[in-house]
């Protein structure tokens, strides 16, 4: 079963959607790895980008029928070099939930998943080295969360007099 065959079938956990002419798959977390694996065999061998969005302030956003909105969304951009095509996979996850890591399929996600962990606090199961990547190791909070305000953070650096 390929992911393209199940258009609109909510029970399978994959909903195909068109966003401004770009192919977007809304994927349930339970079939996330399976879908990415299927797409890999279909030719999407390059994981160009993996990021997240915190929809805390946009809870009533528009989603295809059957997709239950959660606070976070993991957005994976895949590229097929042969078909010259892109596909975007969006997965809804709640605060505190963890995601399976794509490292075993796409080693390129190593730094990207670490960045999402650092910036959003979403953990990835099976990641080889889930540590902060951009912020200092002992930083409090995850800066790209919507409830992490800008400009009011005391400087947190080791050895600095606080």
């Amino acid at each position: 079963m390929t992911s393209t065959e199940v258009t609109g079938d909510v029970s399978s956990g994959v909903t195909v959607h068109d966003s401004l002419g770009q192919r977007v798959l809304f994927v349930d977390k339970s079939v996330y790895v399976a879908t990415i694996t299927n797409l890999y065999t279909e030719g999407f061998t390059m994981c160009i980008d993996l990021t997240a969005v915190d929809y805390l302030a946009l809870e009533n956003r528009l989603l295809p029928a059957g997709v239950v909105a959660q606070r976070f969304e993991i957005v994976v951009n895949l590229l097929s070099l042969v078909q010259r095509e892109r596909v975007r996979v969006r997965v809804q996850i709640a605060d505190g939930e963890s995601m399976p890591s794509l490292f075993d399929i796409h080693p390129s996600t190593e730094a990207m998943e670490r960045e999402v962990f650092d910036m959003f606090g979403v953990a990835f199961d099976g990641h080889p080295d889930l540590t902060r990547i951009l912020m200092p190791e002992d930083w409090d909070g995850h800066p790209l969360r919507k409830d992490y305000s800008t400009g009011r953070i005391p400087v947190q650096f080791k050895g600095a007099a606080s």
Partner: protein
Amino acid sequence: MTTLDERAAADNPVVERSTPVVSAGAITSEGGQELRSRSEISQKALMRESGSVLRLSESAAAALADVANDVDEDQTMIINMGPQHPSTHGVLRLMLELQGETVLRCKPIIGYLHTGMEKTGETLSFMQGGTNMTRMDYLSPLNNELVFSLATEKLLGIDGDIPERAQWMRMLLSELNRMSSHLLFMATNGMDLGAVSMMLYGWREREQVLRFFQKVTGLRMNHNFIRPGGVAADLPAGWRDDVLALLDMLPERLAEYEVLMTGQPIWRERLQGVGVITQSEAIALAATGPILRSTGLAWDLRKDLPYLMYNEVEFDVVVGLHGDAYDRYAIRLYEIRESMRIVRQILDKMPSGNFRIQNKKVTPPPRGRIDESMEALIHHFKIFTEGFKVPVGEVYVSIESPRGEVGCYIVSDGSSVPYRLHVRAPSFVNVQCLPHMMRGGLVADAVAVISSIDPVLGEVDR
């Protein structure tokens, strides 16, 4: 009346200098982010750090048995390169595990230049966003502005209405920017490998290109010139002569580079066979740009997924054969020539017309109108204070920057400020190739390998 000393003492409560809170070593420590000893890390992390994450057949793995994976820790040494090191292009820090002079493991540690630009992007309107984007990859600012503008235009639904002149102007600037970025690579790559005079030559030629940018945009770098809807201003009088002067000057200089670098046995010895990456590794690590092309795959977004008017110009995609540092150097050198070829065609094809879309929603009124019309003044004021509202949606747009695929993912909630702005920075992803390229290499070649990736740390850390 208190003395200055007393006031200073009141403002700054006494810190016991004799008993520092943390030890001196801990101040620069990044704990878990650092390269740890083999006993502390998982097998997967070990594979990753030693540059062997791809699944191989037994025979292929045996052929790769250049690096022992079960070394005694007494025989190895973990050393630090950077963040303060001239050859690490900014503040890239590498931790290397060495056995003698052989690199066994490598881990890039980044984040020293992190300034929260994606967070900043959530507070700047679509009108102001270019000023933020242009500072990420500071060596190809125009490409960053371009990808942001293309993404915003797609969200606005005006991506089909951008005037032709604006599109050709964007291409002209984008290609000149590719040339200036690669010229700087020639300079830094030369310097890193000991051809110090090359540094001066590369900067000299790049400066000529930047002088043209200054004439067109007003600034040498961080232009904020390509904006949603078109470009900020029309080309100045005499621009054609300036570009022609550049095109006349460069071939001769590039020929000099060939003599100075390509022709030198020492140069070739330093680069050939160093930092080899295979095509399957490059794809698995999502490396793009010259790194992917050095492995022989002709993948260039200008050709394969064309944007702007790239399907109307003729150029070749330069590919390598061996995936080594020499191929990456040669690809960049030849890409300068291909960019010059594109620029020549742009000179012939540059149409007349508007340099930005005549859509009152996104385009401010012309300067002259503001003095005459109250409505124009209000319109100008509204666009520059409130910005323009962008419909709800999310979009990912990517272009070929000098370093590879730079992508922009924007989520809009219908206001004039992006809800989320994410940039797929090519250097951030390409730096992941370092452990693979350094696998089994000498520590002296590490500098050549870092240089051949051409990372821009402003973009890696954002």
